[in-house]
């Protein structure tokens, strides 16, 4: 790795860590339902206005079942809205490019599931499929709402840990409203304005047609057909900045354009690239501090954060190394060493303005969180470089995972760790004073089992059905990686694609949608059940006989459990994909 690579990583992680405490403390005010300092004076009336219009009582409390039902109904409504807006976009306003209804219906179904579940898997190209209306009212709105949904689940779980002998977990409607107006909207506004300043468009005008400086001949469809002279190019624009901001902040990842953050109008330069990475990591990590604040022991939050960052770096650094090292088979033909004039490394599928280092960092950031935005094409990464983002997702999106979902997913692992470590000190395991018993184990097991099971089953189905095999364009281990990655990404609500796989078929649309919905809601429901069960329990005061859950030792055990229980179960599958490909490459090199 080059010194520049180390510097880039240190700068990114350092900046995010500096922001964790202020942003985390701010969010603690939001979720402890206290008046929010500063912006509270402006946004407070807005909040109260929303309650009045929607008939929400801010003091109302829900138990875990009511909270969950409210959440599910709200998401069902969102799902239907996204689906119908796509199908009706031809008749709706803000459609200067005259986009017809999104078709086939399986694509609209897949997209609706994708945006409701915070996955943002895209089997379509935004600029040639979606009208401005759909982008703004369906996709961007769901970007906000799905991120808020994740936050509400997390807040309910944290309340379950902090409250004692009660059924009350707070109000879904209040938590949703406060997440939106105090956290996601203001932060998105700031980021969108900065992005606009760097050249990201924010307009409702139609696509721009420009004259080429250098017109060229395009060969005809057949040898005899005449070639055409191309003199103009259509440049897609739109309300990009507003969607770009929440795409990163809400760990959504659904790009306005097909090329996502590799597109110069989504991510014009190194600064925007850096800001987008910071935006992606900010909320999942900052909430660790919020969590620590809410449980009255910030070290608990830092411990979980440490586990997340260590796991992220453990796969980010090899990814950067692999991409910077380049392809050994090409060493004979071209120089891949960094020089003052070129970044070196594996530049296939990467943007010249980012180079291998910032592409690999972005890849790890976007897969460690459940974002799935990309600024380079993973399909053309080196085998090991491609393995890293895939494995980061397969950790069940906990390093650091999505907004809300990352931490509640991580807390499920914490419960498992507490259980095993607790036994080893000879006590019925407890976390933050709450006894962890059979019910919690059952629910935590479900929450942890669902995503890997879906990945494995989905890939297995794709492997042996004609419809699944039809999507493969590369044979051998690389084709397997593409398939495995597609299922991994959807069944963990990430949404990035390895590409190379033709996903817009009825088979992949429907299978993918089912995976995304199951992965999202079958982790939310058990998590909420645990929140309810924990809230009913007493809090046992800590003593020297209690397991310390904020020590380096505990962080180590937590990481070890995630690696052995989840990461290693993918080892055999990965051996047939990226590992086999890497070994083949190395064998040929010798």
């Amino acid at each position, binding site marked *: 790795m080059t010194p520049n690579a180390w510097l880039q990583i240190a700068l990114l992680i350092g900046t995010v860590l500096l922001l964790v405490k202020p942003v985390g403390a701010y969010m603690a005010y939001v979720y402890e339902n206290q008046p929010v300092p500063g912006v509270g004076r402006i946004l407070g009336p807005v909040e109260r206005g929303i309650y009045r219009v929607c008939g929400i009582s801010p003091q109302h409390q829900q138990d875990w079942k009511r909270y969950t039902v409210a959440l599910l109904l709200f998401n069902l409504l969102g799902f239907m809205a996204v689906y119908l807006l796509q199908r009706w976009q031809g008749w709706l306003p803000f459609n200067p490019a005259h986009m017809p209804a999104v078709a086939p219906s399986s694509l609209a179904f897949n997209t609706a599931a994708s945006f409701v579940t915070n996955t943002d898997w895209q089997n379509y190209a935004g600029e040639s499929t979606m009208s401005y209306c759909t982008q703004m009212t369906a996709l961007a709105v769901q970007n906000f709402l799905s991120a808020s949904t994740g936050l509400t689940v997390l807040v309910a779980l944290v309340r379950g840990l902090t409250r004692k002998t009660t059924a009350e977990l707070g109000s879904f409607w209040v938590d949703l409203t406060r997440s939106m107006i105090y956290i996601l909207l203001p932060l998105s506004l700031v980021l969108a304005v900065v992005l606009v300043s760097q050249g990201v468009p924010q307009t409702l005008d139609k696509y721009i047609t420009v004259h080429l400086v250098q017109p060229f001949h395009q060969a005809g469809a057949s040898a005899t057909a005449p070639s055409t002279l191309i003199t103009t190019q259509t440049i897609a624009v739109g309300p990009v900045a507003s969607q770009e901001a929440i795409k990163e902040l809400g760990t959504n990842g659904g790009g306005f354009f097909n090329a996502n953050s590799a597109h110069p109008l989504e991510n014009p330069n190194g600064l925007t690239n850096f800001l987008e990475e910071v935006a992606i990591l900010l909320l999942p990590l900052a909430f660790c501090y919020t969590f620590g604040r809410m449980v009255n022991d910030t070290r608990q939050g830092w411990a979980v954060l440490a586990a997340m960052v260590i796991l992220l770096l453990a796969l980010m650094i090899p990814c950067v190394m692999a991409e910077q090292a380049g392809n050994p088979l090409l060493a004979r033909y071209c120089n891949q060493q960094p020089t003052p004039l070129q970044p070196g490394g594996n530049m296939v599928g990467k943007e010249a303005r980012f180079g291998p280092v910032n592409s690999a960092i972005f890849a790890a950031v976007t897969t460690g969180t459940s974002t799935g935005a990309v600024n380079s094409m993973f399909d053309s990464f080196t085998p090991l470089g491609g393995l890293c983002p895939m494995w980061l997702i397969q950790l069940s999106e906990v390093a650091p995972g999505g907004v809300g979902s990352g931490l509640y997913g991580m807390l499920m692992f914490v419960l*498992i760790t507490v*259980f*095993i*470590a607790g*036994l*080893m*000190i*000879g*006590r*019925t395991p407890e976390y933050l*004073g709450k006894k962890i*018993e*059979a019910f919690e*184990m*059952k629910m935590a097991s*479900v929450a942890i*089992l669902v995503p890997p*099971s879906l990945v*494995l*089953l989905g*890939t*297995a*189905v794709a*492997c*042996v059905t004609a419809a699944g*095999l039809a999507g493969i364009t590369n*044979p051998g*281990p690389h*084709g*397997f990686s593409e*398939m495995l990655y597609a299922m991994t990404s959807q069944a963990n609500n990430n949404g990035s694609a390895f590409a190379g796989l033709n996903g817009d078929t009825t088979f992949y649309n429907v299978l993918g949608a089912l995976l995304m919905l199951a992965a999202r809601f079958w982790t939310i429901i058990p998590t909420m059940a645990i929140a309810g069960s924990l809230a009913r329990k*007493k809090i*046992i*005061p800590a*003593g*020297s*006989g*209690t*397991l*310390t859950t904020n*020590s380096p*030792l505990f962080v180590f*055990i937590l990481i*070890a*459990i995630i690696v*052995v*229980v*989840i990461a*290693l*179960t*993918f*080892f*055999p*599958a990965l*051996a*047939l994909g990226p590992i*086999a490909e890497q*070994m083949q490459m*190395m*064998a040929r090199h010798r």
Partner: protein
Amino acid sequence: MATHHSLNLLKGNVLRQALVDALVKLNPRHQARNPVMFVVYIGSVLTTVLWVQALLGHGEAPTWFIFWVSLWLWFTVLFANFAEAMAEGRGKAQADTLRRARKDTTARKLSAPQRDAAQTPVPASLLRKADLILCEAGEIIPADGEVLAGVASVDESAITGESAPVIREAGGDRSSVTGGTRVLSDYLVIRVGANPGEAFLDRMISMVEGAKRQKTPNEIALNILLAGFTIVCLLATATLLPFSIYSAHSANTILAVAGHTASAAPVSITILVALLVCLIPTTIGALLSAIGIAGMDRMIQANVIATSGRAVEAAGDVDVLLLDKTGTITLGNRQAVAFHPADDVMEKDLADAAQLSSLVDETPEGRSVVILAKNKFSLRQREVDHLGAVFVPFTAQTRMSGIDLQDRHIRKGADAAIEQYVQSLGGHFPPEVRATADKISRSGGTPLVVADGARALGVIELKDIVKSSIRERFAQLRSMGIKTVMVTGDNPLTAAAIAAEAGVDDFLAQATPETKLKLIRDYQAGGRLVAMTGDGTNDAPALAQADVAVAMNSGTQAAKEAGNMVDLDSNPTKLIEVVETGKQLLMTRGALTTFSIANDVSKYFAILPVMFASIYPQLGRLNIMELNPHTAILSAVIFNALIIIALIPIALKGVTYRPRPANKLLFNNILIYGLGGLVVPFIGIKAIDLILNSMRF
């Protein structure tokens, strides 16, 4: 039961029985109770079928290979059965001894609770609750019950293993009798307290046999976790079949394009089963039930009978111990420290009389009086025989002991008893003696008044002696996060003095059953788990409230019913041991779970390079142990089976437990069982592989 204290894992008959039981337990209904081992069981059946198929010429893998994998999978199942049978076997042996005590006798049923009421002979097995029976010297008490009339010494060695007889009498804290014990002297009129089959002895037998053993809450939670982990492994291995079908097909296509013959084949079912069994947590799965049974068994070895496994587990969680001062913190026996003569008596005369009265008194208190007199006034011990004295032993009725010596009748006892004695002889009990006695009582000592006939001579002051090692014990408990609270009837001043000397964290002085109950409730309201011991009927409410309640076997029926454990030795210090046994049980589970999961890492490296060899031969580079590809998988399977046998002693004895803070404990266990679990299989699998190859397998 003292004879069972020796823990011999390889006692011939237990071992033989366990081997037989291991086979009996192959019954699928038994296997289905343990999800992890059930998967191994199904795998064994499946590979056996594949082997038969191979014998018939349709093998999906070499016949020898399927045979050996299948054989070792069966061994894995049998080893698990064997571990469980070993744990049960030791309990069974004890149950048999107990059963011998439950002889079917004929009881003498009474029509009224008097010794001379009308009697009808009834077989003991037909006695019902509330029947009245009479037991005389030499007879075996036919059923559990409460003494309504009479005082008798009873031999309870059949239950407790303690050969010294105990006194049982009507009323008070010593009124309960247990079926199967023998009356040695006098008679007892007993009201039967339990129907046949529900008696203490029956409960004890079913407990040690494990017949009624239900899974404890924590065991259930762990089972769920292990089942979940098994499902992940099952999916991860089962999906490898479609994955490898795709990969083999794809590899063959590429080979065909290059003009080579298609040689890649999907992975065989046998290998998948082998991988699955190696990955699922078989080590802990196989030993889990043995650990639970052995935990109960360790309690029984310590002569504590728990009414449920739940209670044993709860013992590990206890964070407050309520300890009775007497017998736990202080020696039950107080020691003489001073003589306080009455106004008209010389101290030396008092000492002389006190010594005389204690010459034959073999209790520690008595001996301490003799020694004090010797030290203070050089009074030599005299031989009772030479003096022609008659020893008057302590009885429950008189509550005095002493010596009759020619015309002297020296008695010593509690002030109230002596006062009564003196007054009954027409004497006068001097006020200064009473005042001294009261003063001693107030300062935490015990006064013993000595009288010679109708004349009270003075008071011997006995004092509590704090046990020598108790302070360190409490310090250990504190480091484990357990708070100790001394409970005593003493006044706060005395209690504070003893508490400070013993190093307990807190004390409850002038304890009454009500204040005890309140104290427990207060701690529980603060989220703490409380353990206590008790023996009297007035302890029953507190025992019922406490999370872990150890009733003394010498205690009343009410106390025994309120508690969730009974200590046959009636030793209050045992509470600490009970807590440690509970912790050890949980720790053993945790340690072996960690070990089991950590084992997985090596198995991936043993099996993966071989299983995909025909598809991607390049994956051979993952064979970091450099195993022979022909024996690698078998080596992993054999290791996986043998490690169960190797860990049976840990499962039965429990992991070594030393009281220390949680973090140190965790660090040590992670080092031993986590890191050990990671490294040991790498060495073990490699060693087995070398052995297999040296045998030209």
